[in-house]
């Protein structure tokens, strides 16, 4: 065997494989595995590992199967070290054989050992049937690594093709899932089996396409029209995150914010308590310019979660959205919020809560599907979190929802309120019907008396200044000064360190 020739031969094989891959993938409006990694990493920084591993089970050499259908390695994203694997659909349909699976497991373990984030670019037909249970054991190892790394290094999955059957569980356990619309799918059981067993006709897209998971199931945190944007999103996301749970959050050099628009905050909340406004506008004014990265944008739109920067430092934001369902909390919103809070807590990212919540969503649909259990998840997540957490109440804060949204009682560090805030056990309309029942029954002009009582209630009970006097909140602040107050607050809390008592782990209601 002429060893010198092998280098040349290999280089040629790789080139041929890439050419074939380019043709096949581009025809489907997709990128090849290596092209995707080029988009992901800083130019020229990708260092590939185990490029020439052969498939575990010998297959007919009808094609070159170097790498066994997955490209793995380490690269730099904005100068920071990140590990990644990209499955190659053009090699045996990207199917996961033993060697393929071991390559993935290897980068996961290296990422964990070296404290670097791990990114998976998924595009696979699933387990390789020819290799039988060996491929399943490879999956098992991958899942275990997902869990061992969970909460220690950020894990991001980008689904760029099919991901079916057992394979979906790995992305499901990672921190963020990004999908593309119309070219990626996730489902446990495919349409063929669904047709066979349930006699239901449904396409791949309708069963588990990008939009379905972004809007209905909440499995996908982001969905994009094309691959490049999906992959660049990973770069955007990592710019906010620490490399591991010991690493401090990255601090940006650019701290510009819109000074002129701070005044606008004084007018955003309408006088009429029944008129909605867009909480996103408030977020965009408070944080550094254009730094709000919304997560789970299309799922449970009655709550907003995402990262932003305040004075250059990353914070996590959880905010009610009065524009959707009046900002009430329901099952999906509670789950969305809880997962995000727990992620921020794992990685020491301070949390800002913007509150305008009239309560939990009523009704049998919610009750029967378990609003009790699921609402409790958000409460548990906040109670458990030991990161700095600050709340600003912009308007309503009633009852149980007031407690859940990071009140002082459950360990919130600061609670501020705007003058438009209404903090009470119940909204005025409902409260006066109970407290002033006798008075209302006796009244001749019930409507006028009701109006009067509502006003009185707002002045005496739901009044934020009263709440401040009673020590229920820390301060009533002028909306245009909020940004300054928050920067100071988070600065004070910067070195907060607090640990929960020793135990294996709590029992969050699931």
């Amino acid at each position: 065997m002429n060893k010198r020739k092998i280098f040349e031969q290999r280089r040629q094989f790789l080139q041929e494989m890439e050419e074939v891959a380019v043709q096949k993938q581009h025809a489907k409006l997709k990128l090849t595995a290596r092209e995707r990694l080029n988009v992901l990493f800083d130019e020229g920084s990708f260092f590939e590992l185990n490029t020439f591993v052969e498939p575990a089970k010998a297959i007919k050499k009808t094609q070159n199967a170097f790498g066994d259908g997955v490209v793995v390695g380490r690269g730099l994203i904005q100068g920071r070290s990140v590990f990644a694997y990209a499955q190659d659909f053009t090699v045996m349909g990207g199917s996961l054989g033993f060697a393929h699976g071991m390559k993935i497991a290897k980068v996961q373990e290296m990422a964990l050992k070296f404290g670097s984030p791990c990114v998976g670019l998924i595009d696979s037909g699933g387990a390789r049937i020819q290799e039988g249970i060996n491929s399943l054991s490879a999956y098992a190892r991958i899942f275990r690594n997902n869990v061992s790394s969970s909460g220690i290094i950020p894990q991001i999955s980008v689904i760029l093709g099919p991901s079916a059957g057992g394979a979906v569980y790995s992305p499901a356990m990672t921190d963020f899932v990004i999908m593309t619309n119309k070219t990626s799918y996730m489902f446990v059981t495919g349409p063929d089996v669904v047709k066979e067993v349930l006699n239901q006709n449904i396409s791949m897209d309708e069963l588990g396409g990008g939009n379905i998971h972004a809007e209905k199931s909440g499995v996908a945190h982001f969905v994009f029209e094309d691959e490049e944007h999906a992959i660049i999103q990973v770069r955007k996301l990592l710019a906010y995150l620490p490399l591991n749970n010991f690493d401090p959050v990255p601090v940006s050099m650019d701290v510009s914010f819109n000074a002129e628009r701070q005044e606008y905050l004084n007018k955003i909340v309408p006088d009429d308590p029944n008129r909605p406004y867009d909480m996103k506008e408030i977020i965009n004014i408070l944080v550094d310019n254009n730094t709000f990265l919304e997560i789970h944008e299309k799922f449970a739109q009655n709550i907003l979660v995402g990262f932003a920067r305040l004075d250059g430092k990353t914070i996590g934001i959880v905010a009610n959205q009065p524009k959707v369902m009046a900002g009430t909390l329901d099952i999906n919103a509670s789950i969305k919020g809880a997962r995000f809070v727990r992620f921020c807590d794992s990685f020491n990212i301070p949390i800002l809560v913007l509150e305008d919540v009239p309560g939990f969503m009523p009704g049998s649909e919610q009750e029967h599907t378990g609003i009790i259990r699921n609402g409790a998840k958000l409460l548990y997540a906040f109670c458990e979190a030991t990161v700095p957490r600050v709340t600003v109440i912009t308007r309503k804060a009633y009852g149980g929802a007031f407690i859940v949204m990071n009140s002082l009682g459950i360990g919130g560090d600061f609670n501020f309120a705007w003058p438009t805030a209404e903090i009470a056990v119940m909204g005025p309309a409902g409260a006066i019907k109970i407290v002033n029942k006798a008075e209302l029954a006796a009244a001749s002009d019930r409507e006028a008396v009701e109006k009067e009582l509502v006003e009185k209630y707002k002045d005496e009970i739901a009044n934020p200044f009263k709440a401040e006097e009673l020590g229920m909140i820390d301060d009533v602040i002028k909306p245009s000064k909020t940004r300054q107050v928050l920067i100071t607050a988070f600065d004070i809390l910067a070195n907060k360190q607090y640990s929960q008592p020793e135990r294996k782990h709590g029992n969050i209601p699931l």
Partner: protein
Amino acid sequence: MATSYVYKRDATRLFIAMRDNGDRYKIYLPKESKPIINGEEKDVFFIEHKNNFSSFSMGDATYRCEITQRDQHRIMVKVNGVEYKFSIESIFSYLRRNLLNKGVEVQAGNNLKSPMPGKIVDIFVSEGDLVNEGEPVLRLEAMKMQNEITACCNGVIRKIHVAPGQSIMQDELLVEITSIDE
């Protein structure tokens, strides 16, 4: 390389801004000179970018553009009270989509063939480079004369089939270019 060529090598700086009404703007943003829009260098001065406003001046007029909406690659800009909606693509995604729209499989491209037998002396470009129409792409020597082979169109070098020192025949395929002209 003659200085009259507008496109520099870096294809990653070429974008296509498209509107619903079919208008297309091919915009090339060189690092240190003026932007090139639809093949012409435009005398645009960038004034400032503040909050969501970008101000430019061209000739005597100043344009204050407000980015009113942004959703991935779809951006809405308001100038003087009138809104324009754009969809921005990088040259790579644009070419990928365009190829499919034309219904032609990937083999389509503009081919530079050798006009005579000879030997490749020098290749001036790499795959992925952006070239101008008429720009020399490689030099070949034949019958003791040096011949420059120039690009047939504005485009991106898709594939180089030859190497320096290689002997080639007449009509042999030298370079494939994917055109960016309509």
